C-alpha cells in the first residue's frame, strides 16, 4: 500500500523540493496546486478548472488503451471539482514516422484518444504532435482537460463531517492495474516489460459518460458534500488524501466494495486502479436521493465507509481490521529526496548557411512532420460536440465560448524538447512563452498555466539537473508573464536502454477573450492587406527545425528569450485586437517566418509577396523568439505603428497579401495551392505505409 502511495507518481518524492518555488498565487487563481485540478476566475461568477496529466508509460505498452485511459483519468480529475468538462487537448511526442513501430504507436494513441474522447462527448480542440528520435521507445502522451463550474459551487475533495458516508460510484473493482500507473510510472520500460500481469487497463467510455452526467447531476442538486476521483493507487489514495485534507479519519468496509473478480485480497482492493470510479462524501439523510440519481444513470453505488474523527484510515475485510494507518502519513509525509544533480553536456555546431539551396530547404522544413499539417490526427477527434468551439484544431489557440456570454476561453499547449536538450532552463521558459504567445495572438489575455514535466530517470544526476533547471525556467517565465501555475503533473522514468527523452516540459496555457467577436484568426482573409513582422529577427538556428532537417544535426544554444520583449508583444497583440486593428495574426514558432507566412496563406488560399532583406535564409528560417506576423488594412497601419512604438516593439512592414502565389523576395516563388498540398499530404503519405493494424 505504501509502495503505491509513496511511488514517484503519487508522492512526487524527487520533484517536490523543486516544485516548491513555482509561482502559484494571483488574483485570478481560485484553487492552486494540491487539489485534483487548478481553478481560475473567468468572470460572471464562473471558474475554469483545468489540469494536464501524462499517460506515457501505459501508452508505450498498449497505445490505444493506454491513451484512452489517460483521457478517462484526467476527465475524472476535473469532474471531482464539480466542473462540467468542456474541452480536451492532447500534446503528443513520438519517434520518427519512418519507423513502422512509431507509426503504429502514433496511430494507436490517436485512435485511443478519439474512441474515448468522442464517445464521452467532450470536444478535443487542440494539442500538438512532435517527432524526435529520443521518443522512439518512449512516446510522450499528455492529456489536458478544461471544465467550467460556478465559482461558489467548487466541490472540495475533503472527507469532511464525521458520520458522513463514503459512497463508491461507477465501475466494479478488479485486479487490473494493481500498482498500475503508480508502479508503471516509477520504473523504466524494461523493468516493466516482463511484468506478468497486464498492467494496462481497458477503458469503458460508456460508463465514464454515465459517471460524468451522474456526478454533475449530484453536484447541481447539492446532494453531495465532497467528491474525489480514484486515480493512481486507487481507493487508498483517494481516501487518505481526502481524509488528510480534512484532518479527519476514515473507516473502510472492504466487504462492501463491488468486485468484478472473486477473491481479491485487502491490499488488492485498496490499491486496484480499475477505471471509471468516483468516491462521493454523502450526509446519511441524503443517501437515498443520491442512490436514485445513480440508478437513473444505470451506475452501481455502494457505501464503502464512514468519516470518523482521529485522522486514521482503518480498513476491515471479513470483519477483521486489515490496515490501520494515519491518513497524513500516507498522503503527505512521503519521503522527500534531494537527488544529486550534474549538468548534462550539450554539443556545439556552427550553422553554415551559404551551401543552402532555398527551395530545397523550404520544402524540407514545410514537409517535416513537426511542422506539416496534423489534420491526419485531429480529424479523428470530435472537436464540435457541445457547440461552443469557435476555433478548433489548426488554430494557434483553441477558442471555446463560455455559453451564454460574449466571452471565450483560449487554450494552447506547447513545449519544445529540442530547445530543452540544448538548455533545459531556456527550453522550459520558451514553452511558457510560446503557449502565452499562441493565446495572445488570438486577442485573448493569458491567465494561468497547468503543465506536465516529462523527463528521464531521476536517479541519474544529469536528468535531475535538467529537471531542476526546467522548473526554474517555468517559474521565471510564469512570474514574468503573470501567469501562475495552478497544478500539473510530473512524469519521470521516460527512458529505456540508454536513451532518455529530451527534457520535455509541456505547458497548457489558459486565457480569456472578453468579446469573442474581436478574436483574430491566423489565415489572411483577403488581398490588399499590409503584412507586418513584429519583433526582432537575428541569426538564431540553435535547436531549430531548419538545423535538424536541413543541416542534419542539433546543437548550439536555443534562441534567446527576453521576458520584457515577449510581454510587450503580448500586450500589443491583445490591444490591437481589442481595437479591431488586426485582420490576421499568427505566431512565429517551428520553422521560422517562412512557415508562419505559409500557414496564414494556406488557411485561406490568399497569396502574398514579402521582402526578406539582405539575409534571406536567416529571415526565412531563423527561430528568433517573441515574433508574430499580422495583416492589417492600409488605414490601420499608422495606428499599429503607434501602438508598437509605445511598447518599444520593432514592427517591420515586409509586404502585402496578393494573388495566389507566395513570393519570398527573389529567393522563392510558389503557388499557395502547391504548398497546401505538400503541407497537408506529408503525414498522410508517411502514415499510409502499412503499419500493424492498430486499434
Amino acid at each position, binding site marked *: 500500500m505504501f509502495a503505491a502511495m509513496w511511488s514517484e507518481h503519487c508522492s512526487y518524492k524527487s520533484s517536490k523540493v523543486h516544485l516548491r518555488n513555482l509561482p502559484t498565487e494571483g488574483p485570478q487563481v481560485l484553487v492552486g496546486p494540491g487539489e485534483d485540478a487548478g481553478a481560475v476566475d473567468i468572470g460572471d461568477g464562473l471558474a475554469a478548472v483545468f489540469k494536464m496529466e501524462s499517460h506515457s508509460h501505459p501508452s508505450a505498452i498498449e497505445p490505444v488503451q493506454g491513451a484512452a485511459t489517460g483521457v478517462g483519468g484526467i476527465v475524472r480529475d476535473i469532474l471531482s471539482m464539480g466542473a462540467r468538462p468542456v474541452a480536451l487537448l492532447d500534446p503528443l511526442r513520438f519517434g520518427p514516422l519512418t519507423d513502422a513501430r512509431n507509426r503504429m504507436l502514433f496511430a494507436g494513441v490517436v485512435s485511443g484518444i478519439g474512441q474515448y474522447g468522442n464517445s464521452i462527448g467532450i470536444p478535443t480542440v487542440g494539442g500538438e504532435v512532435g517527432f524526435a528520435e529520443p521518443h522512439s521507445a518512449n512516446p510522450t502522451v499528455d492529456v489536458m482537460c478544461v471544465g467550467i463550474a460556478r465559482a461558489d459551487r467548487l466541490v472540495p475533495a475533503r472527507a469532511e463531517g464525521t458520520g458522513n458516508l463514503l459512497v463508491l460510484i461507477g465501475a466494479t473493482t*478488479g485486479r487490473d492495474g494493481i500498482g498500475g500507473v503508480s508502479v508503471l510510472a516509477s520504473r523504466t520500460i524494461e523493468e516493466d516489460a516482463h511484468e506478468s500481469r497486464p498492467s494496462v487497463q481497458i477503458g469503458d467510455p460508456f460508463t465514464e459518460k454515465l459517471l460524468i452526467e451522474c456526478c454533475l447531476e449530484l453536484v447541481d442538486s447539492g446532494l453531495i458534500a465532497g467528491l474525489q476521483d480514484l486515480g493512481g493507487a486507487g481507493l487508498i489514495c483517494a481516501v487518505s488524501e481526502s481524509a488528510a485534507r480534512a484532518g479527519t479519519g476514515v473507516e473502510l468496509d472492504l466487504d462492501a466494495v463491488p468486485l468484478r*473478480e472473486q477473491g481479491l485480497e485487502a491490499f488488492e482492493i485498496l490499491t486496484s486502479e480499475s477505471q471509471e470510479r468516483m468516491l462521493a462524501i454523502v450526509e446519511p439523510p441524503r443517501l437515498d436521493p443520491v442512490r436514485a440519481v445513480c440508478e437513473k444513470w444505470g451506475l452501481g453505488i455502494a457505501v464503502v465507509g464512514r468519516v470518523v474523527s482521529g485522522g486514521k484510515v482503518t480498513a476491515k475485510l471479513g470483519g477483521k481490521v486489515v490496515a490501520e494507518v494515519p491518513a497524513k502519513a500516507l498522503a503527505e509525509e512521503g519521503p522527500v529526496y534531494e537527488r544529486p544533480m550534474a549538468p548534462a553536456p550539450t554539443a556545439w555546431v556552427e550553422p553554415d548557411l551559404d551551401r543552402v539551396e532555398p527551395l530545397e530547404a523550404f520544402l524540407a522544413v514545410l514537409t517535416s512532420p513537426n511542422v506539416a499539417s496534423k489534420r491526419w490526427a485531429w480529424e479523428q477527434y470530435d472537436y464540435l460536440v457541445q457547440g461552443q468551439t469557435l476555433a478548433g484544431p489548426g488554430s494557434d489557440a483553441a477558442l471555446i465560448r463560455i455559453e451564454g456570454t460574449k466571452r471565450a476561453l483560449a487554450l494552447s499547449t506547447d513545449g519544445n524538447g529540442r530547445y530543452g536538450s540544448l538548455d533545459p532552463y531556456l527550453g522550459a521558459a520558451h514553452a511558457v512563452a510560446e503557449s502565452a504567445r499562441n493565446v495572445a495572438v488570438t486577442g485573448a489575455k493569458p491567465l494561468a498555466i497547468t503543465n506536465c514535466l516529462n523527463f528521464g530517470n531521476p536517479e541519474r544526476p544529469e536528468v535531475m539537473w535538467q529537471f531542476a533547471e526546467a522548473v526554474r525556467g517555468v517559474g521565471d517565465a510564469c512570474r514574468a508573464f503573470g501567469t501562475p501555475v495552478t497544478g500539473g503533473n510530473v512524469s519521470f522514468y521516460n527512458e529505456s536502454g540508454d536513451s532518455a527523452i529530451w527534457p520535455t516540459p509541456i505547458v497548457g496555457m489558459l486565457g480569456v477573450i472578453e468579446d469573442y467577436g474581436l478574436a483574430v484568426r491566423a489565415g489572411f482573409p483577403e488581398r490588399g492587406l499590409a503584412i507586418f513582422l513584429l519583433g526582432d529577427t537575428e541569426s538564431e538556428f540553435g535547436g531549430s527545425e531548419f538545423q535538424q532537417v536541413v543541416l542534419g544535426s542539433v546543437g548550439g544554444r536555443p534562441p534567446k528569450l527576453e521576458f520584457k520583449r515577449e510581454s510587450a508583444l503580448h500586450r500589443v497583440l491583445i490591444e490591437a485586437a481589442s481595437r479591431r486593428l488586426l485582420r490576421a495574426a499568427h505566431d512565429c514558432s517551428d520553422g521560422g517566418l517562412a512557415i508562419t507566412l505559409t500557414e496564414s496563406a494556406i488557411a485561406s488560399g490568399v497569396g502574398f509577396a514579402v521582402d526578406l532583406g539582405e539575409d534571406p535564409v536567416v529571415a526565412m528560417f531563423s527561430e528568433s523568439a517573441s515574433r508574430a506576423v499580422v495583416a492589417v488594412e492600409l488605414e490601420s497601419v499608422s495606428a499599429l505603428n503607434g501602438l508598437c512604438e509605445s511598447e518599444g516593439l520593432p514592427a517591420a512592414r515586409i509586404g502585402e497579401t496578393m494573388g495566389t502565389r507566395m513570393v519570398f523576395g527573389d529567393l522563392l516563388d510558389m503557388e499557395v495551392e502547391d504548398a497546401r498540398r505538400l503541407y497537408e499530404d506529408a503525414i498522410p503519405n508517411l502514415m499510409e505505409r502499412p503499419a500493424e493494424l492498430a486499434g
Partner: protein
Amino acid sequence: MKRRFEVVVSLKDGLLDPQGKAIEGSLPTMGWSNVSGVRVGKHIELIVEADDEAAARRQVEEIAERLLSNPVIEDFRIVDAEELS
C-alpha cells in the same frame, strides 16, 4: 492446396470487457435474465495457399500473433481449418 482457417481473438481473462458488460446489462430489459459471462471478441477467416497443412497452420499462427491480435491484451486460437479446392 487452399485451406480456410478461422481464428478467434479474445481479450485476456481478468481484463474488463466493456462490450460484453454493456450487452449483458441490456439483456434483462429484453426479457432474458438467465445469461451471464458475455465476452465479445473478433472472428477472422482467411484462406491460405500452401502445400502442407502444418506449414499453413504455422503461417496463420504467425499472422495472428503479429497482426490479428495484440499480445499485450489479447489471446488467439485457431478454431477451424478446412481444405477447399
